[in-house]
């Protein structure tokens, strides 16, 4: 069963991007995926609520793609949530527009994975930091999937980790698009995607 995937991409400094922009560009090759560059469409933050809601209605899967900024999304993605996920549309008695859609975050984080541990300097694991987003998905009736995260993003290019990550990202989008991602029993998406890639070989 093929699904329509909506990637909402937020990166305010794309000319410096080493991870997210290549990912966004790589996603162009995949059919059934709509790519929205929020900073490109709303450089002055004047988000067109009507248009964004229409887009949500037309898609089955919602992906937030962004670099982690202060343990959360870049500001435009927060602005997008504040304005687009209106009462009566996304939540509340009649707000059922997003019910049953899948939701996932594709994140790059500057810190190493070890930093996002109780004993690391960030103290909280990524899934804890993303609780507000998880709860946003929950209250709007979307199915929240564990995030696809790239840790140590500032040095990923130098360490030659980008091509593998882009492959994961493309696999993820393809699986989402095909409706073939079984995450019921999975809490580590990366392990699942790498296993998938292993099988393909």
């Amino acid at each position, binding site marked *: 069963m093929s699904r329509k995937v909506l990637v909402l991409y937020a990166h305010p400094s794309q000319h410096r991007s080493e991870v997210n922009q290549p990912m966004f560009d790589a996603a162009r090759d995949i059919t059934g995926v709509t790519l929205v560059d929020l900073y490109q469409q709303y450089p002055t933050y*004047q*988000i067109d*609520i009507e248009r964004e809601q229409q887009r949500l209605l037309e898609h089955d899967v919602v992906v937030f793609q962004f670099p982690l900024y202060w343990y959360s999304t870049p500001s435009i993605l927060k602005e997008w949530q*504040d*304005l687009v996920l*209106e*009462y*009566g549309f996304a*939540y*509340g*008695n009649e707000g059922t527009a997003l019910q049953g859609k899948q939701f996932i975050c594709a994140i790059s984080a500057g810190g190493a994975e070890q930093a996002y541990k109780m004993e690391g300097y960030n103290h909280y694991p990524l899934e804890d930091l993303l609780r507000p987003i998880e709860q946003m998905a929950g209250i709007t009736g979307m199915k929240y999937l564990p995030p696809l995260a790239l840790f140590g993003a500032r040095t990923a290019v130098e360490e030659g980790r980008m091509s593998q990550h882009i492959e994961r990202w493309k696999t993820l989008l393809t699986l989402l698009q095909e409706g073939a991602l079984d995450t019921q029993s999975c809490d580590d998406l990366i392990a699942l995607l790498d296993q998938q890639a292993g099988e393909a070989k």
Partner: protein
Amino acid sequence: MTGYFIQAFIFLFAAVVMVPLAKRLGLGSVLGYLIAGVIIGPVTGLVGQETNTIQHFAEFGVVMMLFLVGLELQPAMLWQMRHKLLGLGGLQVGLTTLAVTGITLLLGQSWSIALAIGLIFSLSSTAIVLQTFNEKGLTKTEGGNSAFSVLLFQDIAVIPMLALMPLLALPELQSVGSAAADHHEEISLVAHLPGWATGLVVLGTIVGLVLAGHYLSRPLFRYVADSGLREAFIAAALMLVIGIAALMGLVGLSPALGTFLAGVVLSNSEFRHELEANIEPFKGLLLGLFFITVGAGVNFTVLGDNFTTIIALTLGLMLLKAAVLFVLALIFKVHAGDRWLFTLSLAQAGEFGFVLLTYAVSHSVLPTELAQLLSLVVALSMFLTPALFIVLEKVIFPRYEQQQQQRDMDDIDEQGSVIIAGIGRFGQIVNRLLVANGVPTVVLDHQAAQVDRLRSINIKSFYGDATRTDLLHSAGIEDAKLLVVAIDDKDRALALVKQVKHEFPHVGILARAYDRGHHYELKDAGADYVISETYPSALQLGGEALQRLGYHPFRAEQIKQRFSKLEKQHFESLFSSWLHEGEARDFSDHYRSLFLQLESKILTAMKQESEDTRSDEERGWTPPPKTYQDDFNR
């Protein structure tokens, strides 16, 4: 008087009919002119002996062309070309002269005649070649560049050749020659001076020309430009070129060389584009006239009598020149398609050949019959040149096309320039933003004082009326990506948009409108983006007023945004209504009702300030209803 009109009419009529036809057939304008000349000359006999006189006059087209060429060449660029100029040009003239002289000697002519012929045939046709390069856009290619160096060298070399000719005089031709020489006697300042004095006068003239061009031309053009009369500027441009040509003639230099030099001196001037635009049409017409006279001057009797000889000589000459050029192209590493362009484009004799032939006859160097024969060879080889260009275009270039495309990838840094028309309070800011970010811009303005002020703070700008297509041409509209229209005159802005959209649809047009009506007009004329000049700043001031009245800054900002969003939403309907109303537009009932509708919408949207009813216009940052918690408790 009437006689002149009839002649002029015949010439112009032939050009008007033949040139477009030749272009349509893909033959280029030069061949069109040549054929037109043949038709009105030897074929129908509409024009006759006077062609020679006209030809002298038309040679002035070549002079103007070199002035324009000079304008395109900054002194620094010329200096960069010096190796090609001397090496390529010098070797071409030297080797061709040597080869032609040798062959002529073998054919049994005396050495002085052989050398004269060698010199005459070593020259190529600047007029045909540059004109064709321009038409076909080959000027900036490697081959075009090399060919240009050679042509430039040749034009300079004509001067020593003219000096050398009299030394080759044959005693047995003296009696015939002196009669002709009297006929061609020209006014000269230096004729009766000793050699060293002549040298001093010539040197002084050149230095004076350069200094005057540098220091006097600007105040002069300013003075003329400030009058605001276009014809005064045209007169000034013509005066400059004619004056220099005359001056050069007086001291015995080539007028073409003099005007070329003047062009180079003025190439850094802010008046460059305007000068170019003004001289261009004269150059085109005169060159055309020149080509017609070449065609009209073909002597069919002589041609018929010596048909095989002339054809053989012409083909032999072109083959020989091509061979020399090809070898030079190899030595100087001119590549691929450009090598062929270089080889074939210069393989003809040129208009200076006619000049030298006449000169040689009058100085008893060549017998008249031989000169007549040779001038046919020159004319025929010029005739065949457009055909060679067709071979280049249809056969040779396609083969190299792929390589060409690969090579073009390297120098894309010239692309993406922006032309800004009007550099007043508005255009200036646009220009500063672009220039600060490394975007190359060309600025045009019709106020010389303004252009001057900008120049003094190092902003590259040119004086000129941007509504003239020819000026846009010389500002490089073909390669431009964007045109910013910021000129004050509403009608001229509109005319400019229409013109550019029509002739250069690839150029994006960003236009500044004076008011709502002008905005619609510009949009209708094809502008890609229009902004009403005072709208954003008025909006900003309105927002400031709200803040000072006590509105929270963020709220004031939102109100502004909502206001302009509503305006945008209603743009299309108001615009199409405006379009349909035609003449009565601003006062029509339909348009007025639409406008009132817009105003009332804005009014309601601005007034709406309710907490629980959520209107369409009042969405962003509206909190959920006060009772919304109940939904979750059910």
